[in-house]
């Protein structure tokens, strides 16, 4: 069996219907011409919304064009913006006391920095915060979190490099109970969602939270880097399965990337974006504003 035969044989039968859909998109209105649509498509793709989300949005737009008799390219653009805004579930991060927040994500997305910012925000709101340095894997991760803890003025519970992350969280929970903390924020090691044993380790952190702090609300937040492309969808899907993600934080929005994959993630997994990161200092965390987000795409 030659390479090409085996290639053929192994293959998924599912044929991709996208081509036709894009084609029909190009035909959908005589008044709104091909260039307009191609321009919109380019905008969405270039913002990392991905082929699927783009196609879905355009087909919704098509319905709207029919129903609301949209004529001009400007109206079309506005309608599209509205469609995108609607993709994001309108949920706010609801903190009750006590809460354990697990901050998770792949390597280097900005988890630790975001925890510093979150701690700062909660502390300014009068909450008592404890940080758990459960990234015991990456070199100097605990030191990094400690620096943030010092900057904000909150306690950091840490063990040595290589220690069991669950043990760190366990200690943080005990400390949280003893010191009557409102919020325990747990830093976790960056991990690719494809590494099964590391995802199991993460699940263990979730289980420890449930078991050791029955009164606490547990919230898992997934940190996504705005420069990430379509892989963010797989990340979100698998992290959600593992630790029941309640929402997203989109970091590095101060760069030129638009973070459009969050649209795909929100629509596919019904996950809200709670915050965006816009820099590297304590104040650089903002509430997510879907309208402003969408404006920045266009």
């Amino acid at each position, binding site marked *: *069996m*030659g*390479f*090409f035969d*085996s*290639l*053929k044989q*192994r*293959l*998924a*039968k*599912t*044929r*991709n219907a*996208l*081509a036709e859909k*894009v084609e029909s998109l190009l035909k959908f209105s005589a008044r709104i011409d091909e260039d307009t649509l191609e321009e919109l498509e*380019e905008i969405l*793709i*270039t*913002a*990392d919304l*991905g*082929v699927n989300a783009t196609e879905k949005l355009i087909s919704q737009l098509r319905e709207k064009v029919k129903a609301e008799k949209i004529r001009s390219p400007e109206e079309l653009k506005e309608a599209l913006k509205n469609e995108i805004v609607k993709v994001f579930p309108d949920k706010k991060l609801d903190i009750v006391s006590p809460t354990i927040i697990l901050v998770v994500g*792949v*390597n*280097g*997305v*900005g988890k630790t920095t975001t925890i510093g910012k979150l701690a700062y925000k909660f502390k300014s709101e009068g909450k008592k915060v404890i940080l758990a340095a459960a990234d015991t*894997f*990456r*070199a*100097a*991760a605990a*030191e*990094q979190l*400690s*620096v*943030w803890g010092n900057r904000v003025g909150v306690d950091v519970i840490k063990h040595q490099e290589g220690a069991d992350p669950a043990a760190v969280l366990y200690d943080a929970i005990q400390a949280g109970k003893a010191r009557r903390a409102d919020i325990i924020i747990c830093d976790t090691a960056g991990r*690719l*969602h*494809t590494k*099964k*044993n590391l995802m199991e380790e993460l699940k263990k952190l979730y289980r420890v939270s449930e078991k050791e702090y029955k009164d606490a609300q547990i919230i898992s937040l997934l940190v996504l*880097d705005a*420069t*990430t*492309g*379509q*892989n*963010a969808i*797989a990340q979100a899907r698998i992290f959600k399965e593992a630790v029941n993600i309640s929402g997203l934080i989109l970091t*590095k929005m*101060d*760069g*030129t*990337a*638009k973070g*459009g994959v969050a649209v795909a993630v929100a629509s596919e997994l019904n996950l809200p974006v709670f915050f965006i990161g816009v820099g*590297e200092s304590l104040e650089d965390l903002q509430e997510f504003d879907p309208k402003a987000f969408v404006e920045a795409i266009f």
Partner: protein
Amino acid sequence: MAFEALTQKLEAVFKRLRGKGKLSEADVKQAMREIRLALLEADVNYKVVKDFIQKVTERAVGQEVMESLTPAQQVIKIVHDELIRLMGPKDTKINFSQSKVTTIMLVGLQGSGKTTTCGKLGLYLSKMGKRPLLVAADIYRPAAIKQLQVVGEKVGLPVFTMGGQDPVAISKAALEHALRFNNDVVIIDTAGRLHVDEELMQELINIKEAIKPDEFLLVVDSMTGQDAVNVAEAFHNRLQLTGLILTKLDGDSRGGAALSIKAVTGCPIKFVGMGEKLTDLEPFYPDRMASRILGMGDVLTLIEKATAAIDQEKARQLEEKIRRKEFTLEDFLEQIKQVRKMGSLDQIMSMIPGFSPQKLQGIEFDEKELVHIEAIINSMTKEERQNPSIINGSRRKRIAMGSGTSVQDVNRLLKQFEQTKKLMKQLSELEKGRKKGRFKLPFFNF
């Protein structure tokens, strides 16, 4: 596996093309429409895709379909060639300075993997007989210096630090330090920065002017989306990069950024990061990467790794056993040990053509598990190892007791063993058809 999904898409596209003779314009157009979407899904930049499609279309239309191929196969070959061309030519050499200390600067966005790569590259070069010095010039991120120190210790290399002083001064002093202490390579870990951060980009220019690095390498996360072109272009325009390093390729990102950054900078992708371990740095091979895109698997890398790690005589014996279907738990243990020398099992399997990561479910091992497996197998009688089917409930209990594991652990191991056995049979069937001796995999040796 990176590119896996793109591969599947392309493969799905070509299944649909039928007929013989010359590739008609209609055929090609239809294929290209799908390829375009697949590439976009793979995060290849919009404009790069446009360019690519145009070139491939031009090349493909009117081409005679070779006797041995279907039109689909013909198109895939053309796409494959063009992918290689776009990502090549292969260039994984570090430009060593003749007269002075070779200086390498690593730059990139925040979180792209510079510090880890610094350690990996240092280790890589020290294995080549160099004496690298790692330099901590990230004075901004909390504990970045400490991180590099820990990394340096792990790879057994010296780390030069000067606290939070000016990175230009640090770099200059590091060079002098290297001269004095007989280090012939200096690798500078710079702070992550946005390409639009004027002040910090200027800082890089200043370091560059001060020490005139021999290699100026941009470290790019392989999961990067459309923005990869903006980043690479900005860094390249300001700093004239000499090369790129692609990180986190051990995930399942489709890695379209590889095509994008190469296309916009023209700089060679020199290395790829394949994992969090400091040994997980590999040269970048455009042809292998293109092969991966098209589902041929990264057979060559596998062979290279396997030859380095595997005891040839043991491999030959194993081959015999598989052929005679006598593969036992003892062989299983031996094989796991050998495979571990090459990298993680899923990493290795993902390089084999026709294997998607999904097929690997249930046959993953980590280091701790390996110890368990060894203990479990050691607690079995010889008879049990030769013929696992006799291991009933009470035997399982005894084995669990003896190895300090649980019955579930024993069950899991036996299941993994069966799955591996099945997988190896499938693989050997897959291999059988191949031209004899062409893709021999030393570790399984089908």
